[in-house]
């Protein structure tokens, strides 16, 4: 550095100070970097003797320096250099600015024209420039601009001058840094403001004291007014904030903003908002967060409120539909269901009124369903109206089975008959849609009314679809219930009058259900819980095992069972019942339940028993009277052994009296007497068995043997009547299942009748032929043929009637009893007159299959 006088130094210092002050002030007030640089360049040039000042800044991609601002000292000779500079773009290290950009150090060039790294040297020569200096402006150790000055004089590096410019550059660097930060800050704010203004969600920010810092336009719209300063406690009231019941003001300490200011994180709180700008109210869902400072202290809170009114209304509408469906499921009265449905629909649109009409069972007239908001006069007038092609919207819709839209009831021909009524009620438009069942039958109609002339909007059409669907379900269900109730009533009536008990057994749970009549039949108290075991315990002990077995068998096969048995009721009463049941299984074959009926047949059974008793009594009397017919046979049968015994005993006594008896002979005599006594016993037993009152005991019988034995039994009487009985027995005759005594009784009756029928004949002609045969193998036929007077010609089977008799002494019961016996055995008996003379009585009994008996066994 050159030595300088103190005075000069002082003067220079003064100038420099003044320069810095000027620059500081100018820069501080400059609006942007370019104007600040311009001031700096001018001031430096004017105050320190430079003719050109340039400010270079890097281009946008930081590959080169471009000229931003230039200051020229009026001289037109400088213009070529200005042009050359403006056209220059210096890369790192190139030219004077590039070299400073690279080194980040000031550079002083005494002779720029001859400098090897000065591309503008030609322009500099023509402009007469000699000395150049360039100084970097640094910000955070980065070169943000390069200042460049030129003069015509050749001047060596002046330390002081450089320092002044460096100081200016430093100040510029600071200033630019500040400016850039401010610019950035301002940009961020603008973005934020823009976001907040355009956001659909309401955003409110408040500080710790509850002062609103942000209250965006959406928030103003949502809450009806902008930010106002007021205590927390007044927020709910002033902004119209309510709980979900739409009435209770939201507790101020629970408001999401208040909570977030207290440091809580608040998620998805729903609230209802209503104020003069939203009289129907709206629903909002709020999320809140506290705002914290760098040290973590809560500075305030922010909430974001989303309008969920539409979602909420859709939700309410769906809940309303569910409510109506639940009413249907709970079998609420149809009128209530339909009224709820109409109210729900009306709530979905402003100024909408609806009605539901039902079609009568006759299919020709309508009746009132629901119309809670239509005038009573209108409802009354419509009730009972006929349907048809020109019967208002509803009557026509039901008639046509498709929707009818009338936009003006005052002019539409369909409304000709109802115009005055509509006018009184203030109805202008009416759109009606038929309600159809699942099968497509018209059940009724759903109508929408408006007080303005227009057709339905898409939303209203959608409502109609929902309403008709739900109404259809409700009406159809009610009709089914009616049918069910009717059917149930009919079944109950039938059951009550038929003495029928209904029951269901649930074997899995050992539970049972029984109709009232059933409890009566089984003697169960109406309150007593029933079980399967309890039911079984009522079955008479003698029959319980059989009933249980039949039931178990049915369960195993999942089939049906039927059982006739006695019930043993408390106090020893008995009842005859027939029980029929069916087992039901699920898809996997598990037994679900057994359903069935029990029929009380006690009265019938009693009558049956009485009848059977009477029949047995009659049969018995018949047998007793048969005994009378057979006295000869019995007397003979009994007298023979008695005679033998008497003779033998008498002989024995005589032998003994004579004292010469052979002990072997005596033993023989005694043995014979024993045998004859036994024979007499047999005869008496035979008689007793015929006379005894005994119930039927079916055993397997060989009819041939029975016939042979019976003929033998009656043989004496046959002889005494000078008659002959011959038999023609089929050796292959199958067996039958029958009660021996009863079959003997039948044969005796037939034989004695035959003998009676032949009394008037000469003895030689008194013949009876008893034959058996089995042509088909499944029926055994016994024929008793006589040659007597024959049967009544007009009606041979009259002989089987009670009290029919051709005999003077006969009661006329014999053949009637015979027939009842044969029929009780599942057989038949017919009487036929033979072609020549006499009659045949033909008995047919079911054969036991696979059972044949040869005559040899008889």
């Amino acid at each position, binding site marked *: 550095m050159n030595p300088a006088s103190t005075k000069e130094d002082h003067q220079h210092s003064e100038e420099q100070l003044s320069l810095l002050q000027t620059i500081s002030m100018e820069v501080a007030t400059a609006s942007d970097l370019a104007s600040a640089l311009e001031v700096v360049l001018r001031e430096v040039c004017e105050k320190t003797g430079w003719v050109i000042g340039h400010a270079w800044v890097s281009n946008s991609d930081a590959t080169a320096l471009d000229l931003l601002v230039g200051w020229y000292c009026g001289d037109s000779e400088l213009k070529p250099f200005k042009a050359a500079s403006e056209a220059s773009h210096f890369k790192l290290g190139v030219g004077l600015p590039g070299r400073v950009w690279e080194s980040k150090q000031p550079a002083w060039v005494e002779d720029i024209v001859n400098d090897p790294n000065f591309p503008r040297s030609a322009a500099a020569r023509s402009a007469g420039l000699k000395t150049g200096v360039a100084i970097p402006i640094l910000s955070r150790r980065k070169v943000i601009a390069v200042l460049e000055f030129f003069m015509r004089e050749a001047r060596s590096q002046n330390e002081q001058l450089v320092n002044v410019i460096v100081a200016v550059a430093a100040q510029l660097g600071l200033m630019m840094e500040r400016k850039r930060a401010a610019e950035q800050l301002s940009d961020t704010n603008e973005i934020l403001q823009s976001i907040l203004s355009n956001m659909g969600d309401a955003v409110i920010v408040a500080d710790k004291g509850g002062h609103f810092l942000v209250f965006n336009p959406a928030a103003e719209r949502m809450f009806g007014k902008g930010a106002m300063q007021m205590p927390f406690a007044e927020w709910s009231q002033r902004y119209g904030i309510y709980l979900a019941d739409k009435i209770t003001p939201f507790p101020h300490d629970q408001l999401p903003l208040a909570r977030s200011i207290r440091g809580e994180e608040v998620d998805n709180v729903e609230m209802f908002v209503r104020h003069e700008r939203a009289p129907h109210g709206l629903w909002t869902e709020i999320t809140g967060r506290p705002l914290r400072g760098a040290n973590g202290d809560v500075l305030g809170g922010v909430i974001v409120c989303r309008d969920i009114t539409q979602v909420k209304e859709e939700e309410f509408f769906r809940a309303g539909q569910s409510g109506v469906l639940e009413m249907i499921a709970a079998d609420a009265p149809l009128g209530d269901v339909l009224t709820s449905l109409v109210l729900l629909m009306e709530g979905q649109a402003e100024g909408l009124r609806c009605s539901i009409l039902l079609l009568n069972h006759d299919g020709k007239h309508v009746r009132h369903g629901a119309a809670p908001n239509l005038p009573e006069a209108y409802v009354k007038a419509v009730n009972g109206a006929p349907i048809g092609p020109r019967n208002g919207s509803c009557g026509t819709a039901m008639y046509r089975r498709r929707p009818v839209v009338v936009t003006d009831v005052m002019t539409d021909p369909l409304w000709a008959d109802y115009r005055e009524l509509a006018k009184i009620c203030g109805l202008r438009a009416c759109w009606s849609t038929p309600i159809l069942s699942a099968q497509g039958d018209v059940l009724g109609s759903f109508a929408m009314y408006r007080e303005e002339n227009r057709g339905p909007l898409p939303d209203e059409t959608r409502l109609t679809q929902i309403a008709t669907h739900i109404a259809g379900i409700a009406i159809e269900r009610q009709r089914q219930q009616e049918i069910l109730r009717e059917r149930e009533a009919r079944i109950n009536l039938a059951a009550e009058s038929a003495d029928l008990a209904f029951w269901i057994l649930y074997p899995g749970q050992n539970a049972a259900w029984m109709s009232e009549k059933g409890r009566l039949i089984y003697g169960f108290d109406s309150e007593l819980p029933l079980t399967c075991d309890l039911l079984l315990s009522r079955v008479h002990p003698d029959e319980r095992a059989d009933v249980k077995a039949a039931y178990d068998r049915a369960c195993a096969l999942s089939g049906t069972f039927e059982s006739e048995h006695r019930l043993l009721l408390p106090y020893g009463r008995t009842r005859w019942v027939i029980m029929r049941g069916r087992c039901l299984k699920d898809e996997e074959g598990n037994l679900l339940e057994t359903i069935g009926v029990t029929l009380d047949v006690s009265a019938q059974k009693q009558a049956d028993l009485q009848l059977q008793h009477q029949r047995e009594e009659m049969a018995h009397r018949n047998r007793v009277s048969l005994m009378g017919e057979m006295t000869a046979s019995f*007397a003979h049968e009994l*007298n*023979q052994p008695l005679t*033998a015994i008497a*003779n033998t005993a*008498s*002989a024995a006594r005589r032998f003994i009296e004579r004292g010469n008896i052979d002990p072997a002979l005596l033993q023989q005599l005694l043995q014979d007497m024993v045998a004859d006594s036994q024979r007499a016993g047999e005869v008496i037993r035979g008689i007793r068995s015929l006379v005894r009152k005994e119930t039927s005991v079916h055993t397997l019988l060989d009819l041939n043997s029975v016939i042979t034995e019976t003929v033998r039994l009656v043989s004496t009487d046959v002889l005494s009547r000078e008659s002959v009985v011959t038999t023609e027995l089929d050796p292959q005759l199958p067996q039958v299942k029958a009660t021996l005594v009863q079959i003997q009784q039948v044969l005796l009756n037939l034989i004695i009748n035959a003998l009676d029928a032949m009394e008037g004949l000469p003895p030689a002609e008194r013949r009876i032929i008893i034959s058996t045969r089995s042509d088909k193998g499944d029926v055994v036929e016994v024929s008793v043929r006589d040659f007597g007077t024959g049967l009544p010609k007009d009606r041979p089977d009259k002989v089987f009637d009670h009290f029919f008799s051709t005999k003077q002494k006969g009661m006329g019961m014999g053949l009637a009893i015979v027939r009842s016996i044969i029929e009780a055995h599942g057989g038949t008996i017919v009487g036929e007159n033979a072609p020549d003379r006499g009659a045949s009585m033909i008995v047919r009994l079911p054969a036991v299959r696979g059972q044949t008996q040869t005559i040899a066994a008889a």
Partner: protein
Amino acid sequence: MNPNQADEREVCLVDDDLSVLKSMHYLLASEGLKVRTFNKAEDFLSHASTHHVPVVVTDIWMDQVTGLEVLARLCAISPKTRVIVITAREDLAARATAMAIGPVAFFMKPFNDEKFIAAVRDALGQGRK
């Protein structure tokens, strides 16, 4: 047996009931009487046609032939044979018929042994011992 040397004291018994037949045989045998028994009327009739039969005791109710028929035929074959009828059944008509044919005695089964034996002895013409 030589048919011509018929035993004057032989009593014929006819009854289709074997035990009755046997018991009458015992009874008469106990009195020391000779007895010939027939289980079938036909057998007796053929015997009577070849032998002298002084006395026959017969049932009149038998399976194959009625006693009355037997009596009628016996009358023809051996008119001198004395007949004693026994029956197990009270039958006035039969009794009257039998008496018409001419039996010496008529007994209802069972009968008194003394009277029966007496009747048989009477018939044999031996009188009381």
